[in-house]
């Protein structure tokens, strides 16, 4: 085929986080992370956008069945992240700072095994002014 086709899908989840690392002093934490180092944390309405690629199934005209993609993302990401504290409830962020950069990487790793299509990209919008993308390398 002369062109490459990707399917894009958006999901939403709300979660809290706190940017803080034990590797530096409290003063350094405040200097680096500013308001995001508040010990009680704060939250965002995250928008997750994922793109998958693959051949169109001639029987369905689809790269991947949307219901299968939705349930995979629900199981792998949304159930674990939505209305959670990323620091407390997601094991990957016990030691790693849950910046949205790291969140993109964690989500990519959780979704890369989607069996019906190739995961191309994960884009996470933290607010309407900040977004982050990861393509696996």
């Amino acid at each position, binding site marked *: 085929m002369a*062109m*490459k*086709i*990707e399917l*894009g899908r*958006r999901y939403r989840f709300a979660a809290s986080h706190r940017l803080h690392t034990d590797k530096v002093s409290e003063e350094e934490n405040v200097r680096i992370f500013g308001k995001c180092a508040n010990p009680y944390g704060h939250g965002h309405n995250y928008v997750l956008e994922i793109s998958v690629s693959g051949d169109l199934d001639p*029987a*369905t*005209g689809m790269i991947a069945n949307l219901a299968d993609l939705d349930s995979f993302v629900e199981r792998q990401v949304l159930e674990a992240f939505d209305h959670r504290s990323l620091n407390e409830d997601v094991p990957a962020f016990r030691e790693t700072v849950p910046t949205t950069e790291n969140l993109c990487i964690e989500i990519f790793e959780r979704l890369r095994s989607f069996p019906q299509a190739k995961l191309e990209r994960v884009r996470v919008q933290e607010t309407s002014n900040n977004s982050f993308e990861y393509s696996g390398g």
Partner: protein
Amino acid sequence: MVLITRKIEFSASHLYHNPALSPEENRRVFGKCNNPHGHGHNYTLEVTVAGEPDPVTGMVLDLKELKDILEREIMRRMDHRFLNYEVAELKGQIPTCENIARVIWELLDPKITQGKLHRVRLYESADLFADCYRNGAC
């Protein structure tokens, strides 16, 4: 290289049905989209063209010309149409977002002669879209 993007919106109806499958299979695979009377969407199409700005006009291509191409090739063909029955290029195919985006790419690519078609992004809703790129370009 500079990318320029033009956005248009059109409204159309469609349904998903594959006559090679049983009615039960059609319902299982396509769900609500298999309703025989069809349903519709407000589609948003973003067309991105890549090129170098012309030294005289400063333009990759004249947006007015792109607007005319989109009117002729897409709006007249798809706006307020039933995609399964009224768009010849989609006959015999399931008019998924992926397939419509592919047909749009095939219609526009030969018509864009100043600059090169870079991406077609078609939104079926704010949360579902398909992207087409030239193979090997990304």
